[in-house]
């Protein structure tokens, strides 16, 4: 049995999961902190 497809599959799952979570979290944080700044500017 060739092992590399399993290894690459595992690394793919880990990288997609980690990068997806990090990118989505970062975008949500930027959006939320921009909303705070926008409210400050309105005052």
């Amino acid at each position, binding site marked *: 049995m060739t*092992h590399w497809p399993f*290894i690459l599959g595992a*690394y793919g*799952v880990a990288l997609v999961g*980690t990068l997806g979570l*990090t990118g989505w979290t970062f975008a949500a944080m930027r959006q939320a902190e921009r909303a705070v700044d926008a409210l400050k500017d309105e005052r």
Partner: protein
Amino acid sequence: MTGGVTARAALGYIRPGQMHIFANPARFLRLARPLTGWFGWGGALLIAAGLIWGLFVAPPDYLQGDTVRIIYIHVPAAWLGMAGWAGIAVASLMQMVWRHPLAAVAARSLALPGAVFTFICLATGSLWGRPAWGTWWEWDGRMTSMLVLLFLYIGFIGLADAERERGGEGRLSAIFGLVGAINLPVIHYSVLWWRTLHQGQSIGLTRSSIDGSMLWPLFVSAAGFTFLFGAIVLMRMRTALARQKVEARLRRMAA
């Protein structure tokens, strides 16, 4: 200390009894903003170094061959899945006992990354099991208790969201977080209590059965994933605090 939390304070000049100063969200944010970048970029660099080392430099295992390279993502994911719930349990205790204002935010922020890494642990374990054991899944103690951990995370996320929408303090989810911690020793000792397919404990506090040529890239990768996990939790806490601030201000403006 009367001013903000300085880097000196963060580096150990604060006694354990003074930890309550971080209960102030403004002080927490002053510390969290620079730490997010350091943890995120530091973690990314360590992960890259650990995975390149593990994939291209570390030797294959004498029995399992190249499949052992899955260890460099599977073990950090398992560690973070368990550490995430340990963090939820500590935050839940702080919320129940001291009513720490950031505790519920911390617990909620830990849940999703913990669930994602538990899922990564299960998926990579399955992809490792097929060539190593000849099966994608086995209902043995370690795998089943990790699956239970994933379900606990999903339950916690649902409960905490529902409580927050109703304007609750999050006491129910704190109780759930504490009770769910019972599963952590079950996961840890499962390979001793039930001897089935999953291998026994190979990394201990004082010694390891893994050769140094494989152990060091594993440590680097685990450190990297841990720092990145920290950055993700800090970002999620900053998001939650910013949303709370916006909601409070909109309520004041509407009143």
